Structures are given as structure tokens and as C-alpha cells.
């Protein structure tokens, strides 16, 4: 089994290096095919590991080699394939294999084709390190590794200013969170003496509650960055500057869920500190609503999906925060499938529309892009949580969890958000695929994506439909390591009312979206309509002015302060005082050179004066020695030691 573990882990790395060999040479399709194949190998190996776990095999735990060892610190490169990580591995390898194959088609005309695959495979490797590591340090390696790859992929089209800006923003914002993560690691190490999961978690119940609280908070700050929780969320929407497969893989299915994974992985810690868990859940609920509200009015297809991702991450955190770790993980998995599908579909649309992102400029694309239409609709239905698609099982479960745990505010927020989700998802679908064919004005002739691309997407389509049916198998598997709380509404009546009510609410929202946006004469927002002039619309459109505020109150002051530090403090104070001291000597020399008038008589006078000065020093010293006791007495009387 260890062999399969290594194959699963390292074949993406090999693929990445293979593609990197061709990074500087012109496009060769082999640079895309080989990494995709290797990822498939990785997927197969992961499946074997999954089967092993499912069939009751032991958890595979290997220690490859020592990484850092000094003092009491011992950090190995250790990997563990248990029920949680194998779930993540499956998600990662499935989605990334699909995305790789898809990218061969999507990036077909890009001159940096080879480089793209190098980065993409490197990302998968980092992500696998993240989920498979058996200690916090290994997690951090993967954590930073995915950040790096995300930077490289968001800024993949580095000639675009907006892309590179977004890449840097994502990296730096993640770094802010990583600091929290790092501090969390330090706390774990100094309090438990180890960074291994099993040993650290075993030592935690004995620790003081404050320490555990801080630990939980700092680790969660790390999770907030990667999972783009408020207030570190702005990077995710901007990250849509990257190629669409990247958005599908990194910013929907895998990397952004790392935060959820961390909380799930650290469940023994968060079990001990339910108040932090409640905070996580509240923040999750807030972000769910907050992100969904921003998605309502956005005019950028990818950003809408990104906000929806953000919103779904909020759902996951609600589940994780309330202690329903397996639910969070389940939603993570289901979400990965349908959200990746949604993004890939969006990628097809973009290709067809020559990188147009504004859905108001599309419309009626269901004819030329039939398959894409089907896929995106299915994915949206799944996202909205309609029975029997994947979203229903996972999302409804979260609603139930919040209800059962008696957090009614969270419940109502989530319920309302579910309606919003349905609305904006189908607003998008309606705008793109239905109604008038507005794209014709721009002289575009959309065409469907390559066949193999569509075939590559089909596994995701399938999974988005059927993922819900794995629920019980999955539950039995992961509860081997996660708390096995079953969430059942006590009365059957209540359950049915709730479920049907939710479904109806969601369906209503969908209908409303279709009614508003699927007809031929929709109002294209041009700043004239009454709604657009409302304050709340403006706030939503400007993303609550948060990016603006960051720019205004963090970025600009930082830049200005840096300038002040350099030009005024460093140059005018620190350096100037050094030069000032040097100048004192210099000017003393300049002034006293008149003493050396060359006139011997004057010099002789100075000589005598010097002699007198030396003699007086001798006298003073002699007196001081002679009367040292008295002097000390006087000084001590004055309070000098």
C-alpha cells in the first residue's frame, strides 16, 4: 500500500517536472498529455487506497525521511492515508485529472501551454502534500505550496496587469493568514512538544482552555486565508483573472477548501473549544450570505461563480464549526464536483465567446453550446440543492445540523442564502443560455468545445448527479476518525416540512430568476434603471466597498509609509545622524586647522597650554584618588550609586 501512496503523491510531481522541461520551448502536446496521464495514475493509486480503506484495511502511515530535527523538534516527511485524507485525495485527483484533460483543449492555443501544465501539476502535488501529511509542518508545506502555485497560475498571463496584480494580492493576503497559521503551529509545538497530528491531539485535552482557544483561533486564521473567509476574501474574486481551468481546480474544488480540511483535520482540537467553533460557524454563515449577496448583481460570469464558491465555503465552515465535521467534508466533496463542473462549463462559454465574461452580452447560447448548457444547468441545480442531485444531500444536511444544534439564526441565514444561491445561479444560466442572442451584435460565432473536452467533463457531471448517493458509505468510512454524530430531525413530520419547504423556496427562487432573466427583453444594466441607483445595489455592486477600502486604507498608506520610512526616516534621520557624527569630526578638523597656523610661536603656546592641561588632569586625578572616600560619600548623599 505504501507504494500506492508514493505513486499517488509523486506522480503529479513527476508530471510537473516533465512539463517544466519544456517550459521554455514552444507548445508540445506531450507536455500536456504526460502530466494528465500521470495524474490519472495518481487517481488510480488513490482509488486503490480508497478501496483498501473501504474494505477495512489499515490506515497507511509512512515516514519517508527526516525533514527538520533540532533540539526537541522533530519533523519528518510523514504521510498518512486515513479516511479523511483519502476522501480529499479522491476529490483532488478526480477533479485535477478532469481539469488536466480539459486544459489540453482549453489551453490549446496558448503559447505557454507547457508552462501551464508544469504549474498545474505542481499544484496538485502541493495539494496532495497538504492533505496527506501526518503533521502540521507538512500541512504547512502543502499550504504554502498551493499558495505559490496559485500565484503562478493566477498570474499565468503575466502580460496582463490585472492578472499579476491579482496574483500578488492572493499571495500576500494568504501570507497574512499564513502568519496566523504559523503562530498556531508554534503554539502547538511549545505546548504539546510535537507537530505530529496524533501525538499533538492526544496531548491537547490536558492543556489549559485559553491555550487551546488561542491555538484554535490562530489555526483558523490560517484557514480563513486559504478559504477566503471574511475579511480576507477579496483575493478570491480577483483570482478569476487566471485561466478558467485554474479557477475550477484551485479556486473552487481544492485549494480554497484547504481551510475546511484543516478544521476537519483538527477536529479533536475544535471539539475541545466549542466557543471557537461557534464563532467559526457564525462567520461561515455570515460569509455565506455576504458572498451570495455580492453574486446577485455582479456582471462577471466567473466572479459570480467565485462568490458562490465563497458562499458554499461559508456553509462548510458552519458545519465544521458546529462539530459536524463529516458533513463539512461531505459538502466539500460534493461542492468540488459540481463547482468544478460549473467553472469548466463557464470556460467553454468563455472560449466560445472569445473571453467575454459579461453574461449580459451573451444569451441564447443553449443552441450552439448544447452540452455545455446541460452541464452547467445540472451543476447549477446541484448547487441550488435540488433533489436528487449532490447539493441536496450535503447542503440540506448542513441546514439540518444548524437546526438540530439550535442555532436558529444561523439556520435562517443559511436558508435565505440557499434561496439567493438558487437565484444567482439561475440568473447566470438564464442570461447565458436563454433569451435573446445578444452576442450577435458583437459578431461572434460561438462553437462548442472539443469532444474530448466534453468527455473529460462528463465524470464530473456524473458525480454531480450521483455524489449524494454515496452518503451512507461515506459516513461509515469517515466516522472512523471523525465524530460520528448523526443528524436527524426528531420528528418525521418536522423533517418533511423542512425539506419540502426548503425545496419549494429554492424552486421559487429559480423560477423568479428565470422569469426575470430568461425572456427576450431583459434590462441590460446601464446605470439608468431605478434599481441600479439604489444604495444597496451600489453597495453590492462595489462589493461593499471592501476592495476600495483595502486599497484606500491599507495599500496606499502602506506605500506612503514605506516612502516616508525610506526618504525621511532612513535617509533624513538614521543616515543623516551617522553622517552628522562624521561631520562633527570633519568640521572639528576644519575649524581647528587654524591652530596649525605654521607660526611656531603660536604652536609653542599651544604646546604649553597642552602641558598645562595634562598637568591639571594629573592634579585632579591625584586629588580624586586621595579623596575618593569623601567623593563617594558626597555622591551617595546626592543619590548617585
Amino acid at each position, binding site marked *: 500500500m505504501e507504494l500506492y501512496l508514493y505513486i499517488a503523491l509523486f506522480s503529479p510531481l513527476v508530471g510537473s517536472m516533465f512539463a517544466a522541461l519544456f517550459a521554455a520551448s514552444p507548445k508540445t502536446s506531450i507536455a500536456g498529455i504526460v502530466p494528465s496521464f500521470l495524474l490519472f495514475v495518481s487517481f488510480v493509486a488513490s482509488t486503490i487506497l480508497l478501496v483498501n480503506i473501504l474494505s477495512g484495511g489499515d490506515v497507511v502511515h509512512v515516514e519517508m525521511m527526516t525533514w527538520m530535527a533540532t533540539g526537541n523538534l522533530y519533523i519528518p516527511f510523514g504521510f498518512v492515508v486515513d479516511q479523511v485524507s483519502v476522501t480529499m485525495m479522491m476529490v483532488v485527483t478526480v477533479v485535477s485529472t478532469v481539469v488536466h484533460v480539459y486544459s489540453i483543449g482549453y489551453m490549446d492555443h496558448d503559447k505557454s501551454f507547457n508552462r501551464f501544465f508544469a504549474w498545474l501539476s505542481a499544484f496538485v502535488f502541493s495539494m496532495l502534500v497538504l492533505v496527506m501529511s501526518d503533521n502540521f509542518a507538512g500541512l504547512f508545506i502543502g499550504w504554502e505550496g498551493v499558495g505559490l502555485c496559485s500565484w503562478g497560475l493566477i498570474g499565468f498571463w503575466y502580460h496582463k496587469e490585472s492578472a499579476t496584480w491579482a496574483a500578488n494580492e492572493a499571495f500576500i493576503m494568504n501570507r497574512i493568514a499564513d502568519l496566523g497559521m504559523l503562530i498556531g503551529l508554534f503554539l502547538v509545538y511549545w505546548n504539546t512538544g510535537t507537530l505530529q497530528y496524533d501525538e499533538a491531539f492526544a496531548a491537547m485535552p490536558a492543556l489549559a482552555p485559553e491555550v487551546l482557544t488561542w491555538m484554535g483561533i490562530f489555526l483558523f486564521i490560517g484557514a480563513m486565508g486559504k478559504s477566503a473567509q471574511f475579511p480576507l476574501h477579496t483575493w478570491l474574486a480577483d483570482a478569476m483573472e487566471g485561466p478558467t481551468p485554474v479557477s475550477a481546480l484551485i479556486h473552487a474544488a481544492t485549494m480554497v477548501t484547504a481551510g475546511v480540511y484543516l478544521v476537519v483535520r483538527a477536529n479533536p482540537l475544535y471539539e475541545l473549544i466549542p466557543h471557537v467553533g461557534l464563532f467559526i460557524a457564525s462567520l461561515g454563515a455570515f460569509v455565506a450570505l455576504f458572498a451570495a449577496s455580492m453574486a446577485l448583481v455582479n456582471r462577471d460570469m466567473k466572479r459570480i461563480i467565485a462568490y458562490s464558491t465563497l458562499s458554499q465555503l461559508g456553509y462548510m465552515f458552519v458545519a465544521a464549526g458546529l462539530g459536524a465535521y463529516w458533513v463539512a467534508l461531505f459538502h466539500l466533496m460534493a461542492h468540488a464536483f459540481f463547482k468544478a463542473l460549473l467553472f469548466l462549463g463557464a470556460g467553454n462559454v468563455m472560449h466560445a465567446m472569445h473571453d467575454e465574461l459579461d453574461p449580459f452580452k451573451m444569451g441564447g447560447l443553449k443552441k450552439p453550446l448544447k452540452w455545455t448548457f446541460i452541464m452547467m444547468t445540472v451543476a447549477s441545480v446541484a448547487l441550488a440543492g435540488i433533489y436528487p442531485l449532490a447539493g441536496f444531500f450535503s447542503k440540506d444536511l448542513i441546514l439540518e445540523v444548524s437546526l438540530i444544534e439550535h442555532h436558529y439564526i444561523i439556520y435562517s441565514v443559511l436558508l435565505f442564502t440557499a434561496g439567493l444561491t438558487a437565484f444567482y445561479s439561475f440568473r447566470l444560466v438564464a442570461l447565458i443560455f436563454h433569451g435573446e442572442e445578444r452576442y450577435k451584435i458583437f459578431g461572434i460565432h460561438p462553437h462548442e468545445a472539443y469532444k474530448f473536452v466534453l468527455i473529460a467533463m462528463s465524470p464530473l457531471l456524473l458525480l454531480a448527479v450521483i455524489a449524494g448517493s454515496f452518503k451512507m458509505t461515506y459516513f461509515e468510512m469517515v466516522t472512523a476518525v471523525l465524530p460520528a454524530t448523526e443528524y436527524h430531525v426528531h420528528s418525521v413530520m418536522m423533517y418533511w416540512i423542512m425539506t419540502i419547504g426548503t425545496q419549494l423556496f429554492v424552486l421559487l427562487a429559480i423560477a423568479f430568476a428565470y422569469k426575470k432573466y430568461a425572456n427576450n427583453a431583459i434590462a441590460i444594466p446601464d446605470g439608468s434603471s431605478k434599481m441600479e441607483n439604489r444604495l444597496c445595489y451600489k453597495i453590492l455592486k462595489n462589493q461593499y466597498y471592501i476592495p476600495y477600502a483595502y486599497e484606500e486604507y491599507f495599500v496606499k498608506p502602506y506605500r506612503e509609509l514605506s516612502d516616508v520610512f525610506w526618504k525621511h526616516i532612513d535617509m533624513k534621520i538614521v543616515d543623516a545622524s551617522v553622517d552628522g557624527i562624521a561631520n562633527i569630526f570633519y568640521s572639528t578638523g576644519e575649524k581647528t586647522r587654524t*591652530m596649525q597656523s*605654521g607660526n611656531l610661536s603660536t604652536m609653542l603656546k599651544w604646546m604649553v597650554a597642552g602641558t598645562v592641561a595634562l598637568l591639571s588632569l594629573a592634579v585632579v586625578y591625584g586629588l580624586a584618588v586621595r579623596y575618593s572616600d569623601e567623593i563617594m560619600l558626597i555622591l551617595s548623599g546626592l543619590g548617585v550609586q
Partner: protein
Amino acid sequence: MMEIGLNHYLVLSTILFSIGLVGVMRRKNLLMLFFATEILLNAVNIAFAAISHFYGDLTGQMFAFFVIAIAASEVAVGLGLLIVWHKRHGNIDLEHMSTMRG
């Protein structure tokens, strides 16, 4: 007062020394400056001899001998230099010697 001790000699030596200092500082004529330095040396010699006497130690006298020897050499070389300077410039005034101006 009547018993002459070491301090009397030292005070005398000091007085002579300060007279020499006055000469050194006041004189602008190099020859006169040389005279003043002779006074300085002699003042010190008195102190040496006196200390030697009152402590019963000959080291002071030895030093005085060497001081005299040095004074003699100094006069010889100094006068030679003085004469050359006088030949070249026609005076031996300190005020005119300022080539070492910094």
C-alpha cells in the same frame, strides 16, 4: 625656612622652568628661543640634582649629565640650521617661518 629641603629646590626649579616657558612663548627671535630652551633644561637639571641629593641616589645626576649632553648637541645642530636659515632668508624670525601652515 632656614632648613633648605628638597621642596625649596623643586620650587626654584619650577620658577626657573616657568621663566623658560615665558621665554619660549614670548620670544620671536629663534636665537632667543634657543636661550629659553637652555633655561628649561637647566631648571630640570637642578631638580634632578636636588632629588639625587636628598634621596641619596645617583640616578638623578646621571640624568643631568645626559641632559647636558643633549643640550650640547642640540645647540650644535640648532645653530647650524639657524645659520643656514639666516643665509637663505636673512632673518631668524619665527613669524616668517610658516611653511608648515596646515
